[in-house]
């Protein structure tokens, strides 16, 4: 009965953020693909070129935000998929922890790389 469903953690925020990040990602991802495969061919990417783009503050911020949203969106998506498959109890907590650490690491590393590219470090 009702007790079975007593985990009163509203999942609504995650759900909403997943949609909002998705909407944001549509734009940025399309832009990103276009930029690096059609405008500049990936094969022609050089460090200098990357540096030039990254030095533009707007581009830099967009990319960092891109990274953060994509990480959240992707990792949250993976987590949800696992919960959908019935993940619960301790394994669920463990997975949550691992995924959180992985995303923090990813965002940290990515931001660091971006800062380097922008020549700020």
């Amino acid at each position, binding site marked *: 009965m009702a007790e079975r469903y007593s985990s009163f953690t509203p999942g609504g925020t995650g759900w909403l953020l997943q*949609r909002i990040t998705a909407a944001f990602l549509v734009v940025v991802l399309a832009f990103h693909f276009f930029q690096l495969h059609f405008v500049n061919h990936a094969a022609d990417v050089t460090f200098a070129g990357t540096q030039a783009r990254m030095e533009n503050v707007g581009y830099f911020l967009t990319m960092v935000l891109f990274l953060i949203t994509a990480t959240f969106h992707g990792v949250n998506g993976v987590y949800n998929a696992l919960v959908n498959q019935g993940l619960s109890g301790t394994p669920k907590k463990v997975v949550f922890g691992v995924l959180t650490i992985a995303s923090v690491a990813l965002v940290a590393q990515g931001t660091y790389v971006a800062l380097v590219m922008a020549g700020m470090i």
Partner: protein
Amino acid sequence: MSQSYNRGLIEDFSRWKEFSAGMWAWIFHKFTGWMLIGYLFTHIAVLSSAIGAAQGETMMLAGEQVDVYTGTIQGLESLLIIRVLEVGLLAVAVFHILNGLRLLMVDLGIGLEAQDKSFYASLILTGVITVASVPTFLTGVGF
């Protein structure tokens, strides 16, 4: 129930032939989502070579001394397999985007009756866009 029979999930995936549009969309979306997040991790790993490049590390690429970042990327890009994988990635991303848009519509309660049609549309569009970008992706590979 102490005595009852659990048929487990056999009927889930051994019955793929009977799946309907919404189900396929879900499976594909899941699959493409996982590919994308996987790629994101690799992507950042590859780009991390920029750190070395900034510190002046270099490597040999096609007989030339270049910085590690340029070298890694261009080295990878010169491999056909990577180019093909990239087309795959594009397909994956495009489908995920299009179906993602479809899902956003569904969340807003728009066009629910046409959900199967919009799934087929996403599939077809994905195919078209992918095929159309093959030339762009494959230019100059390995030559």
